[in-house]
């Protein structure tokens, strides 16, 4: 039982951390390219900013889906229920 909870905690940390890592690198690259483009042609900056926000939101999505699933495991762990159901006939 403790092993289930311990491994779930590790998994939650992994999910959130790796998602954040990937998104951080991606957004850094994106922001850098945007700044380069805006420095090269300042009159295009507003249009580029709109497109950049669109891509930011799309990148966020993947990280957020990971965070959502990780928080589900953190607060309503289905493995614990599964273990309880599996152990109940033995104990009862």
């Amino acid at each position, binding site marked *: 039982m403790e092993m289930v909870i311990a491994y779930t905690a590790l998994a939650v940390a992994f999910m959130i951390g790796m998602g954040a890592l990937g998104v951080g690198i991606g957004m850094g690259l994106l922001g850098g390219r945007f700044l380069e483009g805006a420095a090269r042609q300042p009159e295009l900056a507003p249009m580029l900013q709109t497109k950049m926000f*669109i891509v*930011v*939101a799309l990148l966020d*999505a993947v990280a*957020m*889906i990971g*965070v*959502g699933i990780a928080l589900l495991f953190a607060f309503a762990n289905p493995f614990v229920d599964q273990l309880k159901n599996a152990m109940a006939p033995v104990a009862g």
Partner: protein
Amino acid sequence: MAADGGQGALTSSQYIAHHLQNLQVCKAETGEWVWNQCAGNPMALNVDSMFFSLLLGVVFIWSFGKAARKATSGVPGKLQAFVEIIVGFVDSIVKECFQGKSKLVAPLALTVFVWVFLMNLMDLIPVDWLPMAAARVGIPYLKVVPTTDVNVTFGMSLSVFALIIFYTVKTKGVGGFVREMTMQPIAPPTRGIGLIGAPFIIAFNLILETVALLAKPLSLSMRLFGNMFAGELIFILIALVGVWQLPLHFAWAIFHLLIVTLQAFIFMMLTIAYISLAVEEH
């Protein structure tokens, strides 16, 4: 916003769990309707999400309708100017992204944008206010942000999915729809010795295109849900901190305002983009 809201000492996880629970009604095995004992019941109805989403929809339609009915071509009042800004903004985006002809897309985009924005905006109300007020009236659980409920976001994205399929079939016919799913991205050979490989290529295309088609509503709803759920959870966690929560709440609320607007905008953009993909001819 204290951690023990007058109910004796609640533990942190009890407080969090209390704030993450919807007001549910469902039919128990005995056949009668019960409240809040619906864990695992697939036919449970989240009354609070339905109430707030319908309320905000009515607010949107009523205020925009009032501005439209009282619209003057002279100097506009404040409500009319505000509505004009939003409608003009959505109209410019639709004109830029959607190349087909449809009378539905622009009103759909406006509805999606303003409704999702209003629902997300409920997240900025301090976490404890409405649930405490409801607890005084006897309502035990209240989640005020409808978009933190997976059912609401999936409902919207499945409606958009139905519209995508409807527009694809309407523009290209059922044959065109099937052709789009089976003949892309690899064109199967239609004569000669390659005809043997055609069924495999069609099956491969079908798998790829089905996954891409199903990813659209799934990602649309999970993106909105994940962002809003994480934001609400951070608000709840900051509320547990004690007396230092006010500056943290303020800072997070300002950042969350950006996310709220951005997610509503992205939902609208993707709706327009998917319908425009469904309608375009090669």
